[in-house]
């Protein structure tokens, strides 16, 4: 774990959906080139946290500073251009565009990296090269997730938020997801991983954050999150 000044500093973040508050005073720091695993049961506010940081959902309190910029004042496109890349829950691809067009869209914020970026994506995931002219909506779930991951691996963002990337995938495809995010980390990219496989996520991350009903119920070094803690907050199945 690096001791540099934090890349992302979230303090007392609050989010509201109409009359329902989804996040209460969530705080954490994320150092450069480190990984944070965000865990919690359904409805804990994990996805809300991701969407708020990436500019899709407005906050109603608190602050989030990313590389010296006030994240909460930026629009989603500006957040992306500032170097924060959000891989959303579900299949984060444009189903009507071809594989290659999806990758081109991912490069609109990094135009100078277009050709090398495409080559890198096809090198990491050769299956995408084979299907470059195929509409993304016709790919299998695993292939769509590869395409989504390629968005993060073909460019060099400063921070990737990966929201439930392994959801609904085969064990082999889940391995590819973790290997891809590990590759991103090796390239110096920080990662916020929102995951259903709590133990794997904690093994991957430096820090852990457990959310429960919109509040931070535990945070600390990932290796300190023992089985008892996971069982207490997540239940047996989620802690697997």
């Amino acid at each position, binding site marked *: 774990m690096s001791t540099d000044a934090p890349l992302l500093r979230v303090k007392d973040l609050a989010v*509201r*959906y*109409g009359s*329902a508050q*989804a996040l209460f005073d969530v705080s954490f720091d994320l150092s450069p080139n480190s990984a944070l695993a965000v865990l919690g049961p359904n*409805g804990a*506010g994990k*996805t*809300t946290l991701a*969407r708020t940081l*990436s*500019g*899709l*959902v*407005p*906050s*109603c*309190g608190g602050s989030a500073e990313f590389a010296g910029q006030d994240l*909460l*004042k*930026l*629009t*989603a*496109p500006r957040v*992306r*251009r500032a170097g924060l*890349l*959000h891989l*959303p*829950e*579900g*299949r*984060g*691809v*444009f*189903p*009507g*565009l071809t594989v290659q*067009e999806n990758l*081109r*869209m*991912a490069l*609109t*914020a990094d135009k100078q990296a277009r050709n090398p970026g495409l080559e890198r994506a096809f090198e990491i995931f050769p299956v995408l090269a084979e299907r470059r002219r195929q509409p993304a909506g016709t790919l299998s779930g695993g292939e769509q997730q590869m395409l989504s991951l390629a*968005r993060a691996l073909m460019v060099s963002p400063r921070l990737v938020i990966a929201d439930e990337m392994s959801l609904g995938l085969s064990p082999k495809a889940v391995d590819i997801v973790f290997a891809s995010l590990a590759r991103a980390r090796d390239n110096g990219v920080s990662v916020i991983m929102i995951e259903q496989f709590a133990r794997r996520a904690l093994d991957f991350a430096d820090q852990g954050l457990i959310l429960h009903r*919109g509040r931070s119920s535990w945070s600390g070094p990932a290796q300190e999150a023992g089985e008892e803690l996971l069982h207490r907050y997540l239940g047996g199945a989620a802690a697997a």
Partner: protein
Amino acid sequence: MLSYVLAGLALGAVYAVAAGSLVITYVASGVFNLAFAAMAFTVARFYYFLNTEQGWAIPPAAVVSLMIFAPVFGALLYAVLFRHLRLRSTLVKLMATVGLSVALPPLVQLVLGHLTNVTAPALAPRPLAVFHPFGAVLNADQLATYIGLAVVLVVGVGVLRFTEVGLRVRALVDSEALTSLSGTNPGRVSLGVWAVSGTLAGLAGILVAPTSGLSAEGMTYMMSAAFAAVIAARLRSLAVAVVVALTMGVVTDVVQKYLDPSSSFTAAVIPSVPFAFMLVFLLYYAVRGEAGDAVAGGALDRAISPQGGDPSLMRTAAVPQGRISSSSIGTLAVVVVIAVVPAGLDRYWAGLVAAGIAAAIALLSYTLVTGEGAMVWLSQITFAGVGAVVAAELVDRWSWPPLLAVFLGSVLVVPVGVLLGLLTIRLGDLYVALVTLTFGSLVQTLVLTQDPFYDFGSGQPMERPSFAQDNQVFAYLALAVFLLVGLVILNVRRSTAGLAVAAVRWSENGAKTLGISVIQTKVLLSALATYIAALGGGFLAMNFRYTLPDSFHPSLGLVWLAVLVTMGSRSIVAALIAGVVLYVMPGIFASYLPDKFADVPTILFGLGAIGLATHPEGVVAQTGANLARLFTRRPGWAGTAATTLTAPPDPAEAAPHDRSARGEVQQLPTGGQP
């Protein structure tokens, strides 16, 4: 024969430009632009101003109109209106664009002047050159139309398929949220789409002006015909829209070769061709279950989009037993004022108030079908017109007493509404709106404007009851009937059937799981709403003593609905205010202001509907809530804090933290997954 085909292709090319533009803007922005005709008229009128009135040559006039004025105009409309609409309900989207289509033409006429002669040149020089390919006749206007379509298709397809801008537009069609996560500003892309839409609307308007006339009505017919191609394309496929539009144009012209040009049958058949196309495609898609609502964006867009914004889905708080709500006091006050007013007015003004109250009866049918049932029906005015005709027939031919004829004659119209309800039950909101609007146009063309019902516009005579010959008395009679119908609606709302209606309104699937029959509920609403509309039509005919078929034109129905929804689509008293405003305000302008301001009420009606984009709950509901809030601040006031607990009108308004700094996707989600 070839001449007919060539002329048909020119007509089809205009339809194709219009349909293509409607499809592109719909898929890219989620807004079905009912103001396309008004935009076409605006640009074409500006071109006419430069070319004919200012004497500019065709090329500079066309370049300035289509390349500068039209895109700036389209972008301006996006900035002030369309950008607020993407995540609104179908009703609000339609009403806002209806408002624009209502307000824009008179506004343009106010600025550029009223045209007495609507014949206008297009893009070909005058005198018009005529060519004879393969012995057929082809004039330069038709050639210009072909070229216009070819340029639009080549440039449009080229840009969409092969450029970075096109890629971003197509990405936006798939998902606005993902587009913004990719670093592209969706607002800028939409701005560009609407700028192009302005140019396409202008091109269609200029090209169609020589044949349809430079008038909002001519452009509206062109747009209505293009709807058929858009529906054939299931609102999404540009290629299908263009092919069907061209086919429709050819069929429309070729059938004329085999029909007697002087017969009334021909006069009815020709304008019905696009509607026949629409009906065939609709039935085809409805049978296959493929005419549901197209949902804008992907799963992520739906998850972060706000729910609500539909005036019919606004929540109202229950009033504690034994207390009088502030809205009841407001309702009583409005009724008392409207009841007192006719007594102090002369015959003319009392007649206008009576007409307004009669119209309010018909407007209650919208309150029921749209406000309660959340069904966007645009044919209620047609039911009113048919009700007027049926009642007049019963009085004239069968010597029925007028009141009996109106009350029982309206029953005869109910099966039509039930049939339409059954036909549209499986369609999505937008399809229902287009089908009912088309149905209204067809009935207007094939029935109401045909003799013996038309009679040079005055229609059939219609007597009043003998005791209500005086305008004041008739106004009170109409008010009594209005209150009676209002009470029926209130009782329906509170009954078990009303609960079922509310359940269906909130969630059809949820209602089905409770064992509620959606079909039965919607048919019940359709029947009741049709009856009320026909009743209102009968009262309007009694008021004017003639059926006046032109006063039931579907385009006026859009104004009716615009005014009603502006006032509040679920409020009974709002219907009363809307009806009176509809007739009294133009009377005030006509009596006390110069002629040039005669169209100002129409402009205001349109602007009111446009305001729904930011205040979907309507003026009356909003004012009532504001007043209630004001009173509840006073100690001791027992009122129910905001009897109308409305959802935030602009979702972003409820986001207190820096909403202005964040883009359009940052609207407050009330229904997203937390």
